[in-house]
């Protein structure tokens, strides 16, 4: 869940924001934004400015448990901010019976904003640079019973319930309609006999 961006900063704090929006299939759209100080921006532009594919490679490498695709990159030079958007498959794992699990870094501090909105923060000191990761997680709107727990492997997970929609085949639907029609017909027939 962590993305390590190599950045030459001068003992500064680097704040990285990740916004996960998880859908009913367990896939997510992830928006990665970074707002930089003037010096950080200079370094960022030196490293990634004309080569956002480099950042894409680092993101793919740092998130091996997802299948990433559909990348887009925007930068706002006036605000010294860049936004990287991509989609990820396999972000939440389905355990059956409507139970889903989202794995998060056990070093993160989770905070519940609402039933479907969570916030995780994590700070790491890498070579005297403090990296602060702020991850916001938005679950599908019908998700409920969210709870922080550990899975069978001892990994920290956010568990939630989201019953999958049950879809019947047209054959079954037509059959049910015919059965209903049959019962109505019989009732009509009996009513007519009594009269």
């Amino acid at each position, binding site marked *: 869940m*962590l993305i390590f961006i*190599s950045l030459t900063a001068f003992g500064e704090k680097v704040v990285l924001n990740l916004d996960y929006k998880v859908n009913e*299939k*367990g*896939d997510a759209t992830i928006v990665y934004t970074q707002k930089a100080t003037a010096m950080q921006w200079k370094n960022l532009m030196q490293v990634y400015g004309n*080569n956002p*594919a*480099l950042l894409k*490679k680092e993101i793919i*490498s*740092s*998130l*091996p*448990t*997802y*299948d990433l695709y559909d990348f887009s990159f925007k930068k706002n030079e006036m605000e010294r901010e860049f936004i990287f958007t991509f989609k990820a*498959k*396999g972000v939440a*794992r*389905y*355990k*059956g019976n409507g139970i889903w699990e989202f794995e998060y870094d056990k070093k993160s501090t989770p905070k519940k904003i609402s039933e479907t909105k969570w916030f995780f923060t994590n700070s790491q000191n890498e*070579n005297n640079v403090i990296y602060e990761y702020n991850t916001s997680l938005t679950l599908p709107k019908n998700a409920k019973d969210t709870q922080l727990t550990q899975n069978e492997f001892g990994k920290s997970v956010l568990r939630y319930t989201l019953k*999958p929609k049950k*879809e*019947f*085949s*047209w*054959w*079954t*639907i*037509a*059959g*049910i*309609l*015919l*059965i*209903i*029609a*049959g*019962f*109505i*017909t*019989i*009732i*009509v*027939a*009996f009513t*007519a*006999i009594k009269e």
Partner: protein
Amino acid sequence: MRKKVLFLGIFYIILGLFLVSAGLFVFKKTGNPEIKIKTKAAVMPVAYKVYGNPEVENGKYYLVKLSILNKGKGELKDFSISYRIPGYVEWTTPEIYHEILPGQTVIDLFYPHFSNKILDVLNETTAQVEIKISYNNGKETKNEIKRCNFQIRGRNELLYTDMPEEEISDMRDLFTNINLVCCFVTPEDPIIKYFTQRLQKDVLKGTVAGVSNSQDEILRFMKALYDFEIKTGLVYGGTLGLPEKVGDHYTMVQHIRLPREVITGGAGLCVELATLFCSVAQSAGLNCGIFVTSKHAFPAIIAGGNIIPIEATGIGGEGIGGRMDFKKAVETGMKEAQIFFAGGNGSIGTPIAFLNVGKLQGEGIRPPDLKDNPNLRKKIDELFSKKQQTPRRTQPNYASAGTNRQYNQQRQYNQQRQTPATNYRTYTDPSGFFAFSYPAQWKLAYSPNPYLPTLKVMAGSPAMNKDVEVYVFPGTYDINACFTNICNTLISMGSRIQYQPAGTVNINGVTYQRFAGMSSANYQTVYWTAYFTKTSAGVIGFVLGANTNNLSTPDLITIKNSFRVRK
């Protein structure tokens, strides 16, 4: 009429029940998996512990990544995945996904638990990973096995990057596996432990360097190790440090000897001397780091908040302009570390990483388990018994084989220097397998290297600055294995080799696989291009070499264009 309506109602119900049953059991919505398999191109035996640990660097060292998308309209039930690598890893306990919903994607990663048997692989070997998949798509249970090939590199090989060539855009892309250098730091190796114990006992006469953070004591330990290396004649084994640009290509594979091989072999590259220094220091309880740049590598001791770097190649060698004393080696290391942190320069190259060995090994980048070896212990004993003697001087000779026969041949060539002539002679193999033309004044040598029986004939220029060597491997058709065999033989004799495949080329109607590279031994560097092909007799190849990076001279081109094999 009413009865007819009643019967119609009953008919509707029966038909409805039939349709419901058909919908539930016959025309049921089924799952349909779309499986994508991504396999790493190669694994390095020295890092076998890393591949088995999904916690290392956020799980980036997986071997197989399986992406399963359920494209069907029904669920996939009890989707089970198991892996094996025949000869190396048995079938794994199946990972079972009890239900995969329509449209859902599951990612499954395989982290193989190799045993240290993988360290027996000396040459690049093709291996296969088998994936057993079983699932119920709602109608029936399906089983299938998928297979993918990957390479197991030689035990001493380090792939600096696993990034595809078309993705490489930056110096850092060439070093994505740089942390795996720590796998070559082997403080738990019984031979290194034995060496360290003897150093502590016989040279230091006791030390507390590993248990105290006393800078004086740490420096005493470092000095003892550095001076011991000099006294026992360990030398810096060449000018080639880390991968360099060869022609238009970057070499990404490097042969790195294990510290036990460096200390008993008597020579090492910068990175090998760094890993040796760190192995011994870690074995003594100290924590170490390695500064890695695009051109160089040097070790440091990490003590509390201090880093004490040392230029390990300062041991130099008489053949390359002498040696630095310990004080000078530390001063040089300090200067280089300052340059490193300031962004590097043309001399030491671009900073790639400072590897905190203790920290990285603690995070799972573990060295391999190495077996004890009485012969190597004996060699260590010999080193300690001779440390009082004058450091040995290596006899400069042409080839890494170091045989007198070759040395004499080279002397003969040098004595017979003549003005180049334009006429050529033709050499035809007595068995008729191959033939080629070579300048008339060049000298032929038949089977010149007893360690390389596959080297059938060699022709060298009088000044010994160019040559052609012809190799024959009867009864085999695996070009890569043959080529790796040559490399490994030369490496075992002290050469350092860097190379990379350079496509195929057609010579006289025969397609040859081409390799470009360079070798160094005894302070000489040879640039070469090798051409290998399969024939009815086996694999035949020839290597054109020169001591400059210009292999497009008329005589070498003539040799290449004249080379013929019997298919």
